């Protein structure tokens, strides 16, 4: 499965790592080359994860990623509104593809409903962590 992840923060890097360990081939995009240092060296050196240094919100860069060949796009820059814009750019470029395959990682709850209504799959990480914490302490 070809996966494009925009944003190499903790979430983006962790998703890329887990996906590559499951045999998939993630492409990780970030403006800051240093953010890729969080990835295990062997995964990058052996091309299990492709890193692309550049602006994931730039249409020209998005075109060079051949996004129409990807199965899933994940926007995880750490900025909810920016993630939403990038998701909409990918959606325009992908045209006929299912927009549910575009996952928007969010910190807040207000925009989750909006992006779901636009057809994307919105993942509210704050809500997920809270749920997990509550389950762990059995409240």
């Amino acid at each position: 499965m070809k996966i494009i992840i925009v944003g190499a923060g903790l979430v983006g890097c962790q998703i890329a790592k887990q996906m590559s360990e499951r045999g998939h081939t993630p492409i990780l995009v970030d403006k800051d080359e240093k953010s890729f240092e969080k990835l295990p060296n062997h995964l990058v050196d052996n091309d299990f994860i492709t890193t692309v240094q550049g602006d994931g919100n730039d249409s020209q860069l998005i075109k060079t990623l051949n996004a129409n060949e990807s199965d899933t796009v994940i926007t995880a820059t750490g900025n909810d509104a920016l993630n939403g814009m990038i998701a909409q750019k990918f959606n325009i470029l992908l045209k006929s593809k299912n927009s549910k395959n575009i996952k928007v990682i969010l910190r807040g709850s207000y925009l989750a409903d909006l992006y779901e209504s636009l057809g994307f799959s919105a993942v509210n990480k704050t809500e997920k962590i809270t749920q997990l914490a509550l389950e762990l302490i059995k409240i």
Partner: protein
Amino acid sequence: MYIVIAESGNLAQELVASFIASGDEVYILDTNEKLVEKIQSDFGMVATLGDMMSIDDLTEAGVSRASIFIAGSENDYNNLAACQLVKKHFETPKTVSLYNNLDNSQVFDKSGIDVVINTTVLKIERLSSIIGSHPMMKLMDLPGGDKSIIAVKITENSNAIDKRVPELALPSGSEIIMIASEDGTIQNDMEGYQLSARDEIIILSPKNLETGIETILTRYV
């Protein structure tokens, strides 16, 4: 008419004065505490501190009864999200968003926002009207410092007249962003369009190649 303006920065005071003068009711929602205090001191309680992407703050600002919501922050993505949020939650009749980056045009055009205004194009139009016949001017340097946006007007005797964009042999790395004819028509088919005298061309140019591009578009041999 009740108008809510979010994150309009330095424009806020002029906008408030202008809307009040025209008999409209206006309210400013902004994260800049000093700006909110200044507007409150000059115009009364027509401004509040708040985040334009918070339903609670938008509700507090009375967006549910607003006829127009305007998002004018420096961040295109925040304006996009705020206007889409307002459209979805409050069904405001008219949402207006400013945006800076021409690369975001397609997203804004398809966003469902009622009115989208590109501030770069506005500046270009304003500057073009000021400079009149000057064939080339630099509009802005892009972040990063290696590219700039320039406007070139095709001169009367230019060799570029009647040529199509692919025939121009512009320097590598340069890209035509927009072609506007003399009557203001924006040419959508930029590859197929034959250039005419007085066309205004907006170009993304690598640094230090601006003069070379000007020469290609204006020289007469």
